[in-house]
């Protein structure tokens, strides 16, 4: 008895309250579906959204908690993890409205889909705060396995099967490599699994750098780069994005990627602090490759989903600039960009889903002349795409500027210049879609647009999609102009997180950053 009560006193289990709420929601959905049957599809998605929003509220109340370490160091609820957990929960909360109609129209069951998506969210949230190797691996697998399942959800469609199989095989091998790297860390530190303990013991044991640590670093980065789909670990991305259900793609491109970045920050900054030069170098290479390849290949795409896939690869490259900068500004610009990216990318995907549901296609050429039939979607999609391209005064512009500024401050001139050039390239292919929709004359309309069904927002499942779309578009247009609270949030989260403070290469004063953010 005294063992359990002794442990229970040290657990500090309140830290994972937000995740607890998500688990509870998951249970309600699974059991509710079991009891009520198919009719439950009417209320279950709203339960899920409500649960996720409650979880975000719970996260808000945990801001600046005095004792963030929970479960004997296995999980850390510091402000950095809170921001990332918030981003992931929010991305699912925005993704679910667009799933309802999509899944119903494809005739598959909704409750299980939402259940799997919530599990993926849970995996991502735990991954953002995981501070211990076993915990990291379990939550990573939770995220991955749920993603595989969602990818193959349309099991009668060969394309979905193919995507799921590819994702599973590549994902499994990347997990194996990641696990190998992690096991090397375990061995190097003399049997420690806690990241802080590893960081503390490795210098004592190996006396600084060693071949083992370098190989562990390479293997771990291979696992992380797979999650954030950085070139050259990106081969799965276009095929999986094209073959899986579009809401899944939306989640993969935002939630899953954010979780990958959270893992990257936490692991690299703590466990690999000794080899920080090396990982900066590797990530610089990854960022260059991702930005160049993602943007250039996106030019040649004819399918909207594939184009967004390459665009998401390129965006990951931009975000990596912040990681490489390694300064407070760098990290906070990363988080800021991910927040903004959430809304603009999900908004774009909602429009793509709406268009696909009404016309049954996602070819870019089929968007021709959409303006004449459906100005609302055209407007929203244009705003989101232009924001992704970084056109002022939309949110994406400010996000990119902040990233580039942080990179410039950290002295990475070449990388920032490359980022600027490639974002100009990216503007071209985003604008191409916008031009296709807006500029075409009525007689140049594509077949699908000519047969465009009447816009009917009252169909079941359409209303939430509309709401989600409007929220994303408003956030995309205004987050840049009214960005001060977001800047404060991200800088606060970075400056109040101990692991980043001890690791930051260049210490900057918070006031300095506030000035910059005011300038925007």
């Amino acid at each position, binding site marked *: 008895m005294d063992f359990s009560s002794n442990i229970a006193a040290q657990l500090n289990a309140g830290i*994972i309250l937000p995740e607890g709420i998500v688990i509870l929601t998951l249970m309600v959905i699974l059991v509710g579906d079991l009891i009520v049957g198919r009719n439950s599809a009417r209320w279950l998605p709203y339960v899920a959204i409500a649960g996720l929003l409650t979880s975000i509220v719970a996260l808000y109340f945990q801001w600046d908690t005095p004792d963030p370490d929970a479960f004997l160091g296995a999980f850390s609820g510091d402000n950095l993890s809170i921001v990332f957990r918030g981003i992931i929960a929010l991305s699912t909360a925005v993704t679910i409205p667009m799933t309802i109609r999509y899944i119903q*129209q494809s005739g598959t069951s909704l409750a299980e889909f939402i259940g799997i998506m919530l599990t993926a969210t849970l995996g991502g949230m735990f991954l953002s705060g995981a501070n211990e190797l076993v915990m990291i691996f379990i939550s990573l697998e939770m995220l991955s396995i749920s993603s595989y399942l969602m990818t193959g959800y349309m099991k009668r469609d060969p394309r979905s099967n193919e995507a799921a199989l590819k994702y599973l095989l590549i994902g499994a091998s990347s997990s194996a490599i990641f696990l190998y790297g992690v096991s090397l860390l375990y061995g190097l530190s003399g049997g420690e699994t806690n990241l802080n303990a590893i960081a503390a013991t490795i210098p004592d044991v190996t006396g600084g750098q060693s071949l083992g640590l370098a*190989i562990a670093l390479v293997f771990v980065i291979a696992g992380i780069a797979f999650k954030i789909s950085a070139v050259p670990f990106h081969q799965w991305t276009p095929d999986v994005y094209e073959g899986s259900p579009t809401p899944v793609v939306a989640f993969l491109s935002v939630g899953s990627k954010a979780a990958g970045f959270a893992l990257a920050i936490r692991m690299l900054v703590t466990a690999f602090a000794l080899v920080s030069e090396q990982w900066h170098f590797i990530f610089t290479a990854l960022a260059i490759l991702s930005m160049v390849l993602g943007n250039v290949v996106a030019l040649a795409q004819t399918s909207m989903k594939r184009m967004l896939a390459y665009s998401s690869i390129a965006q990951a490259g931009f975000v990596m600039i912040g990681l490489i900068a390694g300064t407070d500004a760098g990290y906070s610009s990363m988080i800021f960009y991910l927040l903004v990216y959430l809304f603009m990318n999900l908004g774009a995907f909602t429009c793509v889903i709406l268009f696909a549901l009404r016309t049954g296609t996602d070819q870019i050429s089929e968007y021709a002349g959409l303006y004449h039939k459906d100005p609302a979607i055209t407007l929203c999609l244009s705003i989101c795409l232009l924001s992704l391209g970084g056109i002022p005064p939309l949110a994406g512009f400010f996000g990119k500027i902040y990233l580039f500024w942080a990179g410039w401050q950290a002295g990475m001139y070449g990388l920032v210049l490359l980022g600027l050039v490639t974002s100009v390239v990216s503007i071209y292919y985003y604008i191409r879609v916008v031009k296709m929709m807006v500029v075409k004359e009525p007689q140049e309309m594509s077949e699908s647009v000519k047969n465009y069904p009447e816009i009917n927002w009252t169909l079941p499942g359409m209303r939430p999609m509309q709401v989600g779309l409007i929220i994303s578009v408003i956030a995309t247009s205004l987050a840049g102009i009214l960005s001060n609270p977001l800047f404060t949030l991200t800088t606060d989260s970075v400056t109040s997180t101990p692991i980043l403070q001890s690791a930051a290469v260049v210490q900057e004063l918070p006031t300095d950053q506030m000035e910059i953010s005011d300038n925007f």
Partner: protein
Amino acid sequence: MNLAEGVQLVSGGILAVMMIVTALGVVLLSNIVYSAFLLGGVFISISGLYILLNADFVAAAQILIYVGAVNVLILFAIMLVNKREDFKEIPGRWIRNASTGVVCAGLFALLGTMVLVTPWSVDSTSPAVIENTIVEIGKHFFSDFLLPFELASVLLLMAMVGAIILARRDLIPESMPRQETISTSLTLPERPRELTSIGATSGEEN
């Protein structure tokens, strides 16, 4: 060296050789059923190494899970499908084999050097101190590894739900508001195309 150490050393050597040989067999044999059976051999040898490392519970769990469940599942899949297909000889196949071999050998050399060069910190607590490994494992599960242990239950639950979803026959619901014909159900709404039966070869076109 007394008798026990000798027995340990010899059995360790036998197990290691057995593991390597069977693992090579899994990879290199062209008959997939042999590969699957040899995989069982790999798992059993690993379990033997666990026994030598005093991890008796892990060894038994390894047999139970990997041999008794994973390997049987693989064999099931192979035997139920049992599709014999003669692959065409690809011209210049030896180049691929050779380059794969070179990459593997290089990787092996790298990892081998790493293992030899790195100053591993060996845990100094003698395994003989741990009287009952199961009690020790249980204590860890319910103290510092509590969260991953509990989280695994959510993971397993969802894996089970997902497996059932993928495996069950879907009945197309009648109550659906029908906008499109039934033939597009259960497929991606964009670009509907002909249905294939589940399990048919996918990816014939891309």
